[in-house]
């Protein structure tokens, strides 16, 4: 098998190679470290390479396998972590110059859980400054520079989980962890043709991760496909005393169905989207209609964008209170971030509470809809990746699936974006599956069924020439 084919193997395929003795955790780690140090860095996707510690972990993983100790699907599998999550042995920069040299003494819960599952942390990956929490509209708002999209290095990987998405898309790591407050896993997944999963609020502990917005932040995997996302979620989900919002039960990935799905398309979700995005979405719906029933439903009518905006404004200001009041936003790379949050000092408390009160009504209405289906469907975004060197319109332009995304964001329900074809310029397009709270298995079953039906696993970005200018 050539290196490119090896690099793009799924987690189960890499695990089979390990268990059948065709490779070792040390060999795999060396292999992906090499890709991180070349391709990953060329794409501006990497903050810190963890060569020594990862090889140490790999040697331990090999020793355990030889001794008959098998920690499960992620044993011996390298991965990357968004750099807003603390990991001992590397700085945790939050993507900002102000925190370039800051380190934490303890691992985040998600890092500890992945280590306990046998996964090997090879790199901390690029994030938009403070995960975009202080505002940004330029892809370059990032300590490591604008993160390039492996499908076309002249385009952006989106944000804020930029490095996680780009590194997975370029097969510089088999999987990565990102974070999402209002689309920061979903949008990079769509732009880079990766699978990005935002699980039910409370599935995954945020302890040790930067807080942007207590009632919206979630951590989740970016992977090759929906199957891999389920495996990673199983490893990182579970109650955690250090995060009071975690749910009492863990998550066990179980494929139950390959057809017979109950699905619904959000009415009007293709209004204003690019022609190819619509064509790929229609082809996906056609493929899924052979695997179950599909209705068209209206999204409950709520001011989702306004709620998300006001809630994020109040909580982000509070989360970064000291930073803002010390005048440190002036030092941000993001032009928007220098002044964007200052006005939130004038946001009345009763308006924040009002937004949260409307949110609860919307949450119940959306839950009522999601419970009737295995998943609701819409394009993940209405556009393909935008140029890496130009400002994008705040909130991303003409994003066809934005209302469904924001409904899931506010309701705390799970959503996954998977690749469903190539659009303008040969760039990926994505489709989102929005499930019911705690309904990840059914949602992942449906997303996997579509991936099989479309054969999207064969689609890969072109090989990266690390010596060439983007």
């Amino acid at each position: 098998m050539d290196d490119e084919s090896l690099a793009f193997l799924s987690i189960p395929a890499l695990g089979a190679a390990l268990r059948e003795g065709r490779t070792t955790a040390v060999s795999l780690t060396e292999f992906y470290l090499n890709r991180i140090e070349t391709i990953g860095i060329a794409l501006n996707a990497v903050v810190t390479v963890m060569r020594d510690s990862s090889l140490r972990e790999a040697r331990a993983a090999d020793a355990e396998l030889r001794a008959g100790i098998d920690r499960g699907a992620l044993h011996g599998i390298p991965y990357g972590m968004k750099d807003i999550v603390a990991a001992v042995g590397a700085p945790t920069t939050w993507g900002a110059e102000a925190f370039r040299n800051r380190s934490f003494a303890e691992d985040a819960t998600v890092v500890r859980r992945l280590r306990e599952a046998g996964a090997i942390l090879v790199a901390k990956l690029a994030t938009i400054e403070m995960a975009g929490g202080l505002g940004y509209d330029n892809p370059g708002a990032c300590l490591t520079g604008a993160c390039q999209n492996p499908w076309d290095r002249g385009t952006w990987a989106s944000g804020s989980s930029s490095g996680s998405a780009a590194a997975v898309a370029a097969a510089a790591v088999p999987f990565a962890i990102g974070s999402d407050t209002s689309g920061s896993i979903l949008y990079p997944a769509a732009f880079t043709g990766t699978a990005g999963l935002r699980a039910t609020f409370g599935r995954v502990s945020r302890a040790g991760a930067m807080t942007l917005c207590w009632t919206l932040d979630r951590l989740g995997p970016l992977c090759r496909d929906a199957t891999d996302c389920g495996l990673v979620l199983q490893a990182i989900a579970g109650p955690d005393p250090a995060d009071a919002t975690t749910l009492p039960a863990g998550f066990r990935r179980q494929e139950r169905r390959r057809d017979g799905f109950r699905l619904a398309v959000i009415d009007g979700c293709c209004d204003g989207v690019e022609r190819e995005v619509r064509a790929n979405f229609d082809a996906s719906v056609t493929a899924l209609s052979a695997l179950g029933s599909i209705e068209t439903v209206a999204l409950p009518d709520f001011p989702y964008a306004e709620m998300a905006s006001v809630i994020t404004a109040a909580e982000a200001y509070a989360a970064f209170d000291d930073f803002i009041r010390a005048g440190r936003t002036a030092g941000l790379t993001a032009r928007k971030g220098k002044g964007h949050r200052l006005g939130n000092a004038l946001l009345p408390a009763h308006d924040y509470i009002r937004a949260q009160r409307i949110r609860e009504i919307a949450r119940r209405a959306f839950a009522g809809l999601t419970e009737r289906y295995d998943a609701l469907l819409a394009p993940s975004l209405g556009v393909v990746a935008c140029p890496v060197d130009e400002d994008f319109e705040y909130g991303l332009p003409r994003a066809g699936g934005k209302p469904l995304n924001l409904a899931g964001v506010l309701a705390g329900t799970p959503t996954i974006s998977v690749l469903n074809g190539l659009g303008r310029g040969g760039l990926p397009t994505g489709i989102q599956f929005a499930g019911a709270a705690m309904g990840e298995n059914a949602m992942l079953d449906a997303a996997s069924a579509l991936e099989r039906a479309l054969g999207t696993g064969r689609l890969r970005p072109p090989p990266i020439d690390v010596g060439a200018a983007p």
Partner: protein
Amino acid sequence: MQNPRDDRQDASASGDRALAGGTDEALAALIERSHGAGLTPEQATELRLSLASQTAALAVLRRYALNNDDAPCFIFTAVVGNADG
């Protein structure tokens, strides 16, 4: 000496009035008071854009009818759905 946080609360209350019909200059003065330093022209521009967007969002939310017993959504202690472990 007045606690700076008290300063900010004053600013927030007057900010609500200013948002309802104040001028850019009044808002800039409030922010300056709240943050204790002047703003660069770049920051002032972003601040104005942000305030315009915030004002528009609040106007939409304020039109939404609520009952007295409509409680806020803060904590997800009991999630209802297609529970499947």
